[in-house]
C-alpha cells in the first residue's frame, strides 16, 4: 500500500478520550460526514451521545480529532444488547489500530454494563471493517439486502459474550412453534467504516 497521504505518527501520540460534552459533537459530526456514505441529521448524533455518553470515544492526535466511535445499548427482544452505530477513523490515520482501540473501549464498557451481545451493520464491500470486527470475534450473522441508501447490501455483525453458565435451549424450549415473521431488528440505518 502506498504510504502517500498517510500521517506519520507514533501510536503513543494518540490520545483516547470519552465523550464529555457538547464541544465534542461537531468533531464527531465532521468526521462521520467526511468518511461515511450515510447522511445523518444532528438529531441522530444527539440521540446517541446524550443517552450513552459513556459508550462514545474520540481519538486525538496533537489536538486534532482523527477518529470516533458512537454506540448505544438497550433491551432488544429480551436481550440486553450493545450496538455500534458509527466507527470512523480519518483515512490518513487508518491501519494503525486506532479503530480497534476505539471500538474495544466501547465493547468493554458494554460488557461491564451487562450486555449479552453487541451488533452492528457494515457494508459488504467494506473489507477493512469486516476484517477488524472478525478479529474481535464478530460473526456475520445475516446479510441485509440493499440495506444502505446507496443500494449496497450490509452484513449484520454480532459478537456474543460468553455466557456465565450454559443456558442453551432445552428440548422443551426448542419445540415451541415459531409464529410470525421476522421483524427488522434495527430501524436505524447506520454504518461503520475505518
Amino acid at each position, binding site marked *: 500500500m502506498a504510504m502517500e497521504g498517510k500521517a506519520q505518527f507514533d501510536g503513543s501520540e494518540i490520545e483516547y478520550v470519552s465523550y464529555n460534552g457538547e464541544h465534542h459533537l461537531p468533531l464527531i459530526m465532521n468526521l462521520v460526514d467526511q468518511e461515511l456514505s450515510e447522511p445523518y441529521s*444532528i*438529531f441522530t448524533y*444527539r440521540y446517541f451521545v446524550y443517552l450513552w455518553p459513556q459508550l462514545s470515544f474520540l481519538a486525538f492526535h496533537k489536538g486534532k480529532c482523527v477518529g470516533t466511535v458512537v454506540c448505544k445499548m438497550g433491551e432488544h427482544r429480551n436481550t440486553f444488547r450493545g450496538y455500534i452505530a458509527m466507527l470512523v477513523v480519518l483515512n490518513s490515520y487508518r491501519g494503525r489500530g486506532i479503530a480497534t482501540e476505539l471500538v*474495544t473501549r466501547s465493547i468493554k464498557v458494554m460488557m461491564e454494563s451487562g450486555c449479552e451481545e453487541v451488533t452492528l451493520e457494515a457494508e459488504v464491500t467494506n473489507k477493512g471493517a469486516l476484517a477488524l470486527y472478525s478479529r474481535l470475534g464478530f460473526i456475520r450473522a445475516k*446479510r441485509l*439486502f440493499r440495506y444502505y441508501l446507496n*443500494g449496497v447490501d450490509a452484513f449484520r455483525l454480532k459478537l*456474543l459474550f460468553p455466557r456465565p453458565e450454559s443456558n*442453551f435451549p432445552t428440548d422443551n424450549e*426448542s419445540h415451541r412453534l415459531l409464529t410470525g415473521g421476522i421483524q427488522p431488528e434495527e430501524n436505524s440505518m447506520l454504518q461503520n467504516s475505518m
Partner: protein
Amino acid sequence: MAEKIEAERRRAIEVPISPSIPSGEGTVWADASSLLGLACNDLRDDELINGENFNLFAAMSALEIMDPKMDSGIVSTYYSIDEAIENGAAPVPLSFDRTLDVQRIIDIMDHLLSCEATWHKGGSLAQTVFSSIYLMRPERTSSHALLHSYCRVIRATSNAVVSAVSDARTNEEEDLFTMTYGLPLKSEGDDKCLSMLHAVEEIISRQLRACKAPPSKKRVLEDIEPLQNNLDLEEGFCKALLCRLRFRKHFYHVLTCMRRPQGKGLELAKKHIVSCLSELDSMLKSGEFLRSNNACGTLEDGIEDKTTASGCQPIGFDSTLNSRSATPTPPRAIKLFSWKKAVNYFQKLLHDLEILCSYSSDPVFESVLRFVVDFQKFQPDLVARALVQLLVVQDGRLYGRDPMFAVICKDALLPDGAKNHDIQKNITVPQLEQLAINLLRVLCTNTSWQRRKLGKILQDWRIIYVQLELAFKKEYGDILRSSVDENLCIKICKHILIWVEEKTYWIASRFLTLGFELDLYSPSEYCMAYWYMYVILMKLAEKTHIKMMMSNETSRRKTKKKRDFVRDMGKDHQIPPAVLLFQCYIYVAEGLMLMLAALRNEHKVFLSLGPFNSEHERFIQHFELLQKACLPDNVSYFSFRETTIHARFSTISVYNCFKDAQRIAKELRDSFANDPDRIAELRRIEQVAEHNGIALNLICRLGTLDPSLKVSFEFTHHPYLAVAVVKRS
C-alpha cells in the same frame, strides 16, 4: 418555513375534537395550542425534546426527514404538479415543430425505460416512472395519440408488475416496490392501451413504408402525412419509434401471458419474449441515429450515463414532485440507470423469464425445488422472482394444478392411489401442505431474506413431524412397530414421515450452503461450516435412501445403523444415483473439514481467536437455529471439536475423501447423461476434488519445511465448495 409550520399546527389544533374521544371522569379537554406555541418558541434549531415519557428515540421517530413541512432543507422546483404544468414543464404537444416533437417523445420513452429499470431494481415507483408529469395527468395527453398511447401502456405495465409482485409477496424487504399511494396507476381506459398502441403503430408503419417507397409508387402513398418535417430523417425516426412501441406491446403481452392460470400462457409468452429481445436490439441500433440527429447539440460528456439514447435531457420529469405523498418513508436519493444499462436490465429480465417459460412444470416436488434453486443461480431480480413464484404456487396448488397432498405423495414415492386416501382429512395434513407451499415461496425470495426465513421454518418442520407422528399414532396405531402386512394407510404414514425428515434436512443443507453463497462465514469458520454441512448431508442422504428403499417393496430391509450406513454406501451397488450424488458432496465437505482442521492444528492458521469470546460462541451464533431444531439430535460444538481436534496431515483420511468424491462423480456421469445441469455439477465437484487433492499433497510435502507457504480458500469452481490455493508469500 417556521411560520408555515406554526400556521399548520394552529389549523390542526383548531379542528374540533372528535366526539369519539369522550372526556372521562376527571378528564377534560383543553386547548393546548398556545402552550404548544410557547414551547415551540423555546426550542432552538437542532434541539430535541427529551422527557420522561418522550425519549430521544420517540422524538427522532416523530421527525419526518424530507417532508417539506418538517424539513426545510428539502428543495423542490415546484410545490405541486399543477404548478409545474402552469409553468410549462410538460407541454402538449412537446413542440409545434413536429421534428422536435418526435425527438422529445423518443427522449421521454427512453427516460421512462431508465426509470422503469431503476424502479425494478429497488427505487420507488413515485420517484422513478411516476416522476413523469405526463403520466401523472392522464387526461392532458389525450390530444397527442403517440404520447397518450405510450403513457397508457406504461401505466398498465406498471400496474401489471405491481400486481404480480404484490400477489407473490416475494418483496419482503423490497416493499418500497409496491407502494403506489397517490399515483394514477389505474387510469380509466388504460386497459385499452394495446388497441391504442396498435393504431399508432399502424400509422407509423405506413409512414415508414411511404418514405421508403420507390419514386414510382410515391404517388399512391402521397396521401399519407409524414411523421415529421425533415424527410431525410423520416425513416430513422419512424424506425426508432416503431421498435420502442413494439417493445412495449410485447412486454405487456409477456406479463399478461405469464399470469394465465396453470402456466397455460407460457408458450405464447416465450414468443413475445423473443420479439421483445429483438425490439431491444433495434432500439440499441437506433441509438447512433438518435445521437447524431439529436436536438440538444454535441454532448460534452459521454453518452454512457445518459438516460436517453440521444443523450438529451428529457422534458416533463420531476422526481421531487411526488416525494411528499408517495411513501411513508423518506424518499431515497435515487441514481437513475442510464438508458444503456436499462436496456441491459430488460435483456437480463427477459432471459430470466425465458428460462421460466421453458420449464416443463414437472409435478415432482424435488424437481421443483431444484428448478427454483437453479433459477436463483442466475440472480434474478424481484420481478422475475415474483413471476417464478406465481407460476409454481397458484391457489394453494402446484402450478395451480396439482393438489399439494398428491404432490407430497408422489415425492414420497407412494403409489398413485395414495393421493385420494382419507388420511388427508387429518387436521395435520393441511398444515403440512401449507408448509410445503411456504417452502416454495421462501425459495423464490432474495437469497439474503431466504436464508433467514429457511432458518426459521426449520423449527416448523420439526414440529410438524412430531405432530404428524402423534396424529398417525393416535388414529392408526403404533405404526413404527408394525412392519408386516402393511396396509396402504400405514404405508402412507411411514412414507410421509420420512419425507418430512428428508425435506427438513434438505432445508438445513440449503441454509448452510447459502451461508457460503452470501459470504457469511469467514475463513476461520469454514471448518465448522463444512463439519456441519457434512453432518447434515449424511442425514439427508440417509433419509433419501430410506425413502427410496421403502418404496421398493422387494428390497424391504431394515436400515443399517447411522454410522455404518454412509460408510457402506460406496460399496453397495444398489445405491440410487440421487444418494450417490449426496455422497459426493459428503466426501468433499468431509475432506475440506479435515484439511482445514489439520491446518488449524498443525499450522496454527484459520483459528478463531478474539479478545472477547471463543470459537464456541461463534459456533452457537452461526448454528443456533439448527441446534434449536435439534438438527440432528445430539450434536453440539463439542462434537465438532471431537471430530476435528486430532486431525493431522499424517493421519487424516482426507486424501481418500477427495479421491472418492472424484471417483463417484465420474461414475455418476452415465446415470445423469440426460441431465446437462447435473452433468455440469458433477464436473464442478470433480474439479473441486481434484484441485484440493493437489493442494493437499503440496501442503503435506512442503508444509513443515516451508513456513512461507500460505493457504487460502476460493470459490472459483463451485458456489459453496471451496478450493484450496497454495502460494508462497
